[in-house]
């Protein structure tokens, strides 16, 4: 005898069975002890599950949860600090590494590095001095020729031209607000 179909029906939801299937199953159960014991076992199991009560935690669950939450937040903040610190340290280490790598030839000869810096500073100073010598007679001469009022007027005009230039540049480069 093929029990499989009846076993499938036993564990199917009762409302899913047709009347004929329920009758066939009932007939089969009258004759088959194996299937009957399975049905019996299933009903006993369901009864035991129905009787089993909900189990609750030991008292003080909420306060234990609050402690756990506090510990978890503390852990989270500590981890955040460690992560930030690690990033900063890693960044500095990388920067230092790059600097050392770039400056390695100079670091091998510190005296050469020193004299190069001195030479650079001296060159800059020479350029600045030459510029001062060139500009100072011009400035001194123009101060006598041009009146104070003319300086103010000239600077004002120059500012206005700058503003006009900026506005024109923006108008020309910005996209149109209204698309035709």
């Amino acid at each position, binding site marked *: 005898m093929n029990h499989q179909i009846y076993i499938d029906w*036993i564990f199917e939801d009762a409302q899913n069975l047709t009347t004929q299937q329920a009758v066939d199953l009932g007939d089969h159960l*009258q004759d088959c002890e194996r299937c009957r014991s399975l049905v019996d076992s299933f*009903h*006993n199991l369901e009864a*035991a599950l*129905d009787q*089993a009560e909900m*189990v609750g*935690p030991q008292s003080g669950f909420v306060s234990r949860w609050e402690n756990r*939450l506090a510990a978890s937040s503390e852990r989270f903040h500590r981890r955040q600090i460690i992560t930030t610190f690690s990033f900063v340290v890693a960044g500095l280490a990388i920067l230092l590494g790059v600097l050392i790598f770039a400056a390695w030839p100079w670091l091998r000869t510190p005296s050469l590095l020193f004299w190069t810096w001195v030479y650079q500073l001296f060159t800059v100073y020479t350029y600045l001095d030459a510029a001062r010598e060139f500009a100072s007679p011009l400035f001194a001469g123009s101060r006598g020729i041009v009146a104070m009022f003319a300086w103010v007027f000239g600077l004002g005009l120059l500012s206005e031209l700058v503003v006009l230039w900026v506005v024109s540049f923006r108008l020309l480069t910005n996209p149109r607000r209204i698309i035709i």
Partner: protein
Amino acid sequence: MQDNESNWLIEAQNGDSQAFTHLVETYEKPVYNLCYRMLWNVQDAEDAAQETFLRAYQSIRRFDRSRPFSTWLLSIAAHYCIDQIRKRRMHIISVEDLADPDIPEPSPGIEMNLSRKEDRQRIRAVLGALDPIDRAAVVMYYWYDFSYEEICQTLSLTMSALKSRLHRARRAMAEEWLKQQTSTQPKESRSSHSAKMAVERMAS
């Protein structure tokens, strides 16, 4: 109650931990029960329930208030327990190997208490034989009276998958229950009366 819960949810989503504590008070028992029925160990259940609330608290801002909070919370608990069972399997510990905790249950007499303890051990063995997802589905179906839709939502299953899982689980549980009965009771004491009753029930 429902209004209170909605208010607590809104406040908790705005970062009020006190409001979330009210939610913990409300749901501690259902969450713990699910964890206990899944893991069958008091300490593990306590840990799992605590972890569930912690995870819920950490992701409460992402919770969609159009869904029931209980389903969402139990979904976190179920998935956490399923993961724990899978991890536990890696260490090859069977459910039967764990000590049976004496959970105090109100009972009128010693016989009743013994019978309940026997039933509890059988339920434990029966559920322990199931796949973790099937176990979660059975627990939600029998202890929480969840509808099929709610179980599908909680366990992220399709309706057909759930029906097939429940069908398979019922059969496995009935067979295991029968095996347990056979091993603990003498043959003659098995009730033929209850079998007849079962036949009548099925026929009706």
